[in-house]
């Protein structure tokens, strides 16, 4: 299956249960629309043919069942909800990212699949239905028990480990999107002429540049003048 049709399938299978199961219960700001176009269709960042082939195979691979994908989406939405100006996990395309990265990193497959199965088993024993099909209140009651690693109840450890993993994947997936950059306030990855820590920040930290150190540093007003040296290794330009 090519990437586009796989994406369409995922989109259609998830929209209905998510609209009922997620958006209506957690007040998803996007009104139930899950971003299934978070991953670009074509990659143009210096891929070798072997890498292109590997990605094609990953996109064509089906690993998760519909039920598993829905559960992933529900969890991502709980971890980082959409009722925030910078959007949440579903706006940032988290389910699609999680699906891809789990296929890409073999060592994630079993923990995520097994974690979902544990969660469903626990939900059934507590509330009589699997995690995606219990009420929001019931879901959050379970999350409150497994979202804190300091809980020592041995019976909950598999759930705690799984929730920590889903929190890691959700946050890493979110903070590597435009929404996440905005949320963080990240300022870098642009061409610039860096000239030291801002003065107000230095003051805030009680720091200052040592004058003798500063004396050795680059004078950015002369960066474009071609370097020359005297015979004693002193820069003369």
């Amino acid at each position, binding site marked *: 299956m090519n990437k586009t049709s796989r994406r369409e399938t995922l989109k259609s299978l998830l929209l209905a249960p998510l609209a009922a199961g997620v958006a209506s219960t957690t007040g998803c700001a996007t009104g139930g629309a899950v971003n299934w176009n978070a991953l670009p269709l074509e990659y143009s960042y210096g891929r070798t043919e072997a890498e292109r082939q590997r990605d094609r195979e990953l996109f064509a691979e089906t690993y998760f069942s519909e039920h598993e994908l829905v559960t992933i989406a529900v969890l991502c939405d709980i971890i980082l909800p959409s009722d925030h100006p910078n959007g949440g996990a579903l706006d940032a395309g988290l389910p699609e990212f999680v699906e891809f990265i789990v296929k890409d990193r073999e060592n994630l497959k079993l923990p995520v699949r097994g974690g979902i199965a544990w969660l469903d088993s626990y939900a059934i024993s507590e509330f009589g239905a699997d995690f995606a099909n219990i009420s929001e209140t019931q879901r959050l009651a379970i999350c409150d028990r497994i979202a804190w690693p300091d809980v020592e109840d041995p019976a909950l450890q598999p759930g705690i480990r799984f929730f920590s993993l889903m*929190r890691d994947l959700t946050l890493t997936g979110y903070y590597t999107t435009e929404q996440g950059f905005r949320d963080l306030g990240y300022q870098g990855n642009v061409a610039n002429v860096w000239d030291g820590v801002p003065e107000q920040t230095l003051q805030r*930290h009680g720091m200052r540049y040592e004058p003798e150190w500063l004396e050795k540093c680059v004078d950015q007003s002369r960066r474009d003048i*071609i370097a020359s040296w005297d015979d004693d290794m002193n820069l003369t330009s």
Partner: protein
Amino acid sequence: MSNADQYDAIVVGSGAGGGMATWALARAGLRVALVEAGPWYDPADEAQRTQFRYPWESPRRGASTRLRPFGDFNACIGGWELDGEPFTTADDTDFMWWRARMLGGRTNHWGRISLRFGPLDFKRREIDGLGDNWPIGYEDLKPWYDKVDKLVGVFGTNEGLPNDPDGFFLPPPKPRLHELYYIRGARRAGIPVYPSRLSILTKRINRERGVCVYCRQCSRACGLHADFSSSTVLIYPAVATGRVDVYSNTMARKVDTGADGRATGVSCIDRENRRELRLNGRTVVLAASACSSARILLNSISAQHASGLGNSSGHVGRYLHDSTGASRAAFLPELMDRDIYNEDGVGGMHVYTPWWLENAQLDFARGYHLEIGGGMNMPSYGFGFAANQYKRFLGERVGGYGNGLRDDVRRFYGSRLSIACRGESVPQYSNYCELDPNVVDEWGIPVLRFHYRWTGQEINQARHMQDTMEELLEAAGGILLGGKPGPERQYGLTRPGEIIHEVGTTRMGDDPATSVTNRFGQLHDADNVFVADAGTFVSQADKNPTWTILALAWRTSEHIVEQMRQRNL
């Protein structure tokens, strides 16, 4: 198939050594064939650009893969494992071997740390009785280091240190905020700290190359050609002379020799169509990396060179050694809730600590330097893992879900300070690579088998590294993260090969019975074959090898030109 051309020189490998040899020989008017196992590469080519990409341009958000072990945007094509090109290890050996397959080799993604070896680094046996002295000293190499500084460009400062020589430096960038905390810690601990020395252009050195725009992405290779890569600095200008033919995607199989035992050319395989290719040359310069050049020599078996070319001493592959390494990190509460601004800076640390102690008072023989990490890095895969783990240091509960996590992420962003140590190991005859008689790669070329074990010297050094890192991180105001590795983990000592500073396999010396090349990198056994990579190192100092590879390769190339002028070659 044979190329009818007769080249003055065939250079195998296009990394630091091969690039320099190609440039220097072509500049002197020689006709040069450059053989590179990987494809042509230019980071300024939009189709190959990974610089200035955002994480969402990668479906895995920059995560590492087997094909890009240092991350999806890293420039190096190659890795720890190459499909179809295995290597093997002896039972008690845990060796890692990074191989690049691209124009410029590993110089496309290296750390740009550019340190001259000092006077002591060439004469270690004189000092501690271990290993061997180089046949040359700092005074022999100093003029070449000087020339490399001016040609390539390196920032740093002249500090007048006894074993970390001054140079023709460009000015360094100012320290970042976490580096100011490191400086503060180092001052408190009484450990020196100086501006780092990296081959990144903080100032223009010519009209061809650009000046650094502080994106911190040297590991993605620079489209402005504002850092040192062999391709951007040496090979493009060499090709522009019109005297260089680049054979990319071409793998050297062996050096061919004639009845007189001298080289006549290089047998290669064209990797794209699997055809054999023979290049004819008056001289051969091997610069395929220390281990790959040793492999080529060992595979160049003939009646005159029954144990491999250059191997009458049995020393090809011997004395293989890598730098040692260990690392540690801390959480700096003073860097919580920090102002967010662009603090990318150059592609690496702005400050570092060179070796500062006397080994005579220590239980290990050689030194190490410290590299500093931290800051407000661009998020990529892994960012946000264990997002609020530092809350435990504040007496708060770790974990949870919901929008509060956003506050945690922002609160702890950029609050980590890390140190990585890189040290000198003692070269051992018993650490070596050889041909594995039972395994060939997909080109039918016998592969290398490695034998390597650290000694007590390196393990004791790693223990000292751990103590130093703890002292410095705590002095900087940090709360140490993770446990302190003890003897059961060799104090966190990295695996042999892991630092990717492997050297020594074709070491130079005046005695043909105990060395492979003379002091010019010329084989004792065949005067028209030279080694221009780190294979000729007698010992790898606690410095990074690239600057010395460049200086030696230039010196070797001038020697070739001179010998040709005198009709000795």
